[in-house]
C-alpha cells in the first residue's frame, strides 16, 4: 500500500511536470515548424508530413548513419564525457584528502 502510494506520487509529479513542459514549449511558439522556417532553416516539404513522415533536419536526422568511428562510437564518446566529468570533480577531492592526511601525519610525527 505504501509502495502504491509512492508510485502514485511519482506518477502525479511526472504528469504535472510533463503538462507544464508541454505548455511551456507550445506557449513559446516553438512547437511548430513556423518558428524554424522564420529563421531560414529548410525542411522537407509539408506534403511529406501528411504522408506520415517525421520531421528531420538536413543531414540525416535520426536515420542510422555511418560515423567516423563506426559502431559504438557514440557510446564511447558519451562514456568519455561522463568519465571526464567524474575525473574533474572527484580527482581534486581525492588529492585534497591525501594532502590533509599527509599533513596530519607530519603533525603527528612532529609531536612524537
Amino acid at each position, binding site marked *: 500500500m505504501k509502495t502504491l502510494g509512492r508510485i502514485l506520487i511519482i506518477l502525479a509529479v511526472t504528469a504535472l511536470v510533463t503538462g507544464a513542459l508541454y505548455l511551456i*514549449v507550445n506557449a513559446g511558439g516553438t*512547437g511548430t515548424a513556423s518558428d524554424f522556417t522564420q529563421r531560414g532553416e529548410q525542411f522537407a516539404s509539408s506534403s511529406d508530413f501528411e504522408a506520415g513522415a517525421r*520531421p528531420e533536419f538536413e543531414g540525416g536526422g535520426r536515420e542510422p548513419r555511418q560515423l567516423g568511428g563506426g559502431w559504438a562510437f557514440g*557510446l564511447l564518446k558519451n562514456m568519455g564525457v*561522463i568519465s571526464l566529468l567524474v575525473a574533474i570533480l572527484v580527482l581534486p577531492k581525492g588529492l585534497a584528502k591525501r594532502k590533509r592526511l599527509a599533513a596530519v601525519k607530519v603533525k603527528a610525527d612532529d609531536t612524537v
Partner: protein
Amino acid sequence: MTNGQTQSNKQIKNKWILDLTIFIGFLIAMDPHSTGIAIHEWLTLSALVTIMIHLLLNWDWIAQVTLRFAGRVSTRSRLNYILNWLLFIDGILIMLSGILISESVVPALGISLPAGFAWRRLHDMSANIALLLLGLHTALHWDWIVNAFKTFIAQPIGRLFVKRDERKDVTA
C-alpha cells in the same frame, strides 16, 4: 553480521545493480545511430520502470531532504537534491519529446501525433544536458559506487583467489 546489516547490504547490492543497469541502458539508448531507432525507443520506454524502482529504493532520502530542504541539510545533499530534480525534469523532457517524434513505439500503438520540429531539437538538446547531469550525478555518488564495487565485486573475487591458495597449501 546481524540480520539488519544483511538486509541493508542486500538493499545496497540491489541498488547498485539497478543503477549500473540504468547507466548502461542510458549509454546504449544515447547512441541510436548504432542500435537503430526501434531499440532506442523501446529501451528508453522500458527504462521508465527501472527509474521508477530507482526512485522507490531511494524514497527515504528523497522524503527526508524534501521535508528538510529549507532547514538543516548539508550543502552536498542540497546540491544533490537540486541536481536530481534537474535530471528528473530533463528526463521527462526527453521522454515527452521522444514520444512526440517517435518513429517506432507510437506508430506501433496505432497513435498518430502532430509532427513538430522544435520537439526534435529539444530531444537532442535535453539528451545532451542529461549526459552532463548524469556525469555530475555519478561524480557526486562516486565514493558510494566505488565502495559498493569493492564490497560486491572486488572483495568476493579476491576471496576466491585466497581460498584457492589456501586449498593449494592444504594439498601440498
